[in-house]
């Protein structure tokens, strides 16, 4: 399979094409089968490839395949070619694996929807694009996947296109992503100008020749990395471009699970990890990355604590977790970032799928305040969501614990990290535990608030989906528990993942200092984090199980703060007012109605009417009186006479 691993990319494309073109004529079974089997086949190939891949000696684990030349203009070449190395191997496994599970889940989840074929073809297209993104061997081809997943995200968010909010959200997602993409593409321009190539390996080789050590000051590498990071903030929903992700929850829930939690949004992290040889030589940018990451993590976690929409909570949670990952890559702990990316993919996908079945059971009710007591009805969902919540909260021995601890430790100990990063990181961990358990408590515990809130047409109690849908739950729950063991911290064992990924992070500069600084040991810090986490859980328990009154009292007491958090710090409003409205107004009032219509057209039409005016003036010469005409003739003669008199006589 190693020779032809690239077919795994093309198979979903085939599914997309068939479903997209002929899907309207197919029955639902055919569509579902076609779609799931293509992704399943991809996943299978992926597994086989992985099997052969790990048999290879470590230094041979970089396999590239070129299909054809995509763009060639002068010395600028971008091949349609793929690169398989440990980093992309991990990513493609996650993408096809989680992708397959969510395809399966969707078969039933979407059963009641119109445009079934549309949904599945988009989903297949997404898998294709994501694979291109992950496996591309040059920046430009990565950009294809990069924008391609953005497109799929757009299409899937706007899946319920008759809803205005869905259309708005889709558009917003695409445009905000595009803003980031501009940064990305300018970064690519600069890469080409600096290194004369777009291919990763060539670029990395050149950069390690040009800059054997990290640069001092903000140089060209700083610019390149910063521009790429702008791209990442768009795709991975970081400050200041995170605003699209909460709105993206307008899409079907499996889409949120797949695209807006597990895979696409992590592309930014992947890209930075991929560009590690560049980033490690630009410490200033890395600091910015880490700072943006941790600020986003904090901000999103804060907002998440006050959201009432179950999916919005999860969305802000995703943003927050992505912030962690950026913190990780920002302090140079690339494998830690990828590690968290992987574990997050499992538990966050699971959370979304769980929320999906809750929503489905309640007939598209998403308000947390109108749920409660569901543990009686949705057993499987209840248990698996518990597992996922424990994982995300960072309860020891669950996968999230290991990846998060790794990040926190690196944030503290790495040469690029510091105590402040760690401190905020721990704070966010506490907040995460709080809002996640708040969610669990509100959904599954307490009184049944849904019946009186909901319409009477559904007298029967909420039910679990059929068994087909439970399979993904189980698998994801399994991985949410065990996935952490591939990256055990030093005090417990070895970090296999880091070792596996190491070949992808060649071409690094000589580290400035090998010694890790700091006064505390890893295990001590982990203990503090665990304590904070449990404090968060306890607070949630206190507020949402023990005494619901406190919540309201607190909200009233700190109403200003509460409002601020509840309204998401008014970021959307500020953006809307500052950018959208003002630009639109400027375009309409000044550019179009004034410059175009009044000034330029006015000038043109003004010339025309000036001509008309002159015309009317000139024709007055033709008074109709013969004697006046004679005067003109005589006048002309006199002028000629004067001319000769003055010049020639």
């Amino acid at each position, binding site marked *: 399979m190693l020779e032809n691993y690239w077919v795994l990319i093309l198979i979903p494309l085939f599914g997309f094409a068939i479903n997209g073109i002929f899907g309207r004529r197919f029955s639902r079974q055919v569509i579902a089968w076609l779609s799931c089997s293509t992704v399943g086949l991809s996943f299978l190939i992926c597994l086989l490839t992985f099997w052969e891949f790990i048999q290879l000696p470590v230094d041979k684990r970089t396999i590239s395949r070129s299909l054809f030349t995509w763009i060639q203009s002068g010395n600028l070449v971008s091949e349609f070619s793929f690169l398989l190395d440990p980093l992309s191997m991990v990513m493609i496994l996650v993408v096809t694996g989680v992708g397959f599970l969510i395809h399966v889940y969707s078969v039933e989840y979407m059963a009641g929807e119109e445009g079934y074929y549309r949904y599945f073809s988009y989903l297949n297209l997404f898998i294709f694009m994501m694979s291109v993104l992950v496996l591309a061997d040059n920046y430009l081809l990565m950009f294809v996947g990069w924008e391609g997943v953005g497109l799929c995200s757009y299409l899937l968010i706007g899946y319920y296109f008759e809803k205005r909010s869905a259309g708005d959200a889709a558009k917003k997602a695409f445009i905000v992503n595009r803003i980031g993409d501009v940064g990305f593409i300018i970064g690519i321009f600069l890469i080409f100008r600096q290194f004369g190539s777009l291919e990763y390996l060539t670029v990395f080789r050149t950069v390690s020749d040009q800059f054997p050590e990290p640069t001092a000051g903000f140089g060209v590498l700083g610019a390149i990395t910063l521009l790429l990071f702008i791209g990442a903030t768009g795709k991975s929903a970081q400050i200041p471009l995170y605003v699209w992700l909460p709105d993206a929850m307008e899409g079907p829930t499996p889409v949120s699970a797949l695209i807006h939690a597990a895979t696409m949004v992590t592309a930014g992290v992947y890209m930075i990890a991929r560009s590690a040889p560049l980033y490690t030589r630009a410490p200033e940018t890395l600091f910015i990355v880490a700072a943006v990451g941790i600020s986003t993590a904090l901000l999103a976690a804060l907002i998440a604590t006050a959201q009432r929409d179950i999916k919005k909570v999860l969305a802000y949670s995703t943003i927050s977790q992505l912030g962690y990952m950026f913190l990780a890559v920002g302090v140079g702990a690339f494998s830690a970032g990828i590690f968290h990316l992987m574990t997050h993919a499992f538990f966050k996908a699971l959370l979304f799928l769980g929320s999906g079945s809750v929503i489905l059971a309640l007939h598209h009710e998403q308000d947390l305040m109108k749920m409660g007591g569901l543990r009686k009805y949705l057993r499987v969902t209840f248990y698996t969501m518990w597992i996922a919540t424990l994982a995300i909260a960072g309860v020891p021995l669950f996968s999230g614990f290991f990846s998060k601890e790794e990040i926190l430790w690196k944030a503290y100990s790495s040469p690029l990290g510091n105590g402040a990063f760690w401190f905020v990181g721990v704070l966010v961990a506490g907040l995460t535990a709080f809002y996640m358990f708040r969610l669990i408590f509100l959904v599954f515990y307490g009184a049944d608030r849904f019946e009186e809130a909901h319409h009477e047409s559904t007298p029967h109690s909420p039910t679990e989906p059929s068994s087909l849908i439970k399979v993904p739950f189980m698998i994801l729950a399994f991985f949410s528990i065990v996935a952490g063991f591939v990256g055990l911290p030093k005090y417990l064992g070895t970090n296999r993942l880091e070792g596996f990924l190491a070949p992808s992070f060649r071409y690094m500069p000589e580290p400035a200092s090998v010694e890790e600084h700091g006064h505390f040991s890893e295990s001590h810090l982990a203990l503090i984090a665990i304590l904070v986490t449990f404090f968060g859980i306890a607070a949630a328990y206190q507020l949402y199980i023990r005494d619901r009154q406190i919540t309201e009292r607190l909200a009233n007491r700190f109403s200003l703060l509460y409002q601020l958090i509840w309204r998401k710090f008014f970021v959307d409003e500020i953006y809307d007012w500052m950018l959208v409205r003002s630009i639109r107004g400027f375009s309409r009032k000044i550019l179009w109605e004034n410059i175009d219509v009044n000034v330029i057209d006015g000038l043109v039409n003004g010339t025309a009417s000036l001509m008309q005016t002159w015309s009317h003036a000139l*024709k*007055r010469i*033709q*008074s*109709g*009186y*013969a*004697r006046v005409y*004679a*005067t003109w003739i*005589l006048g002309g003669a006199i002028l000629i006479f004067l001319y000769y008199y003055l010049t020639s006589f």
Partner: protein
Amino acid sequence: MVPATHYLALAAILFAIGALGVIIRRNVITMFMCVELMLNAVNLTFITFSRFLNQVDGQIFVFFVMTVAAAEAAVGLALIVLLSRRTDTLDVDQANTMKW
């Protein structure tokens, strides 16, 4: 002997009177006469040059001019008759239906 300039000046004055007459007078006949005056000023010029160049050519030309003037007069008067029949006037400013 009177120098040529005197004759030429006289002719020029006649020509100017004729030209001004065309502009000032409103009666078509008078205007036409003024044109004739201009032509005769030219004739005077021709004769002057002819005399001072010691050629007869110029004098012959005068005959041509007179012939042409006669032909013009024939056509012109016919047109004037037409006008007076139509408008009962010889005022040239009445012929003013077409303008602008």
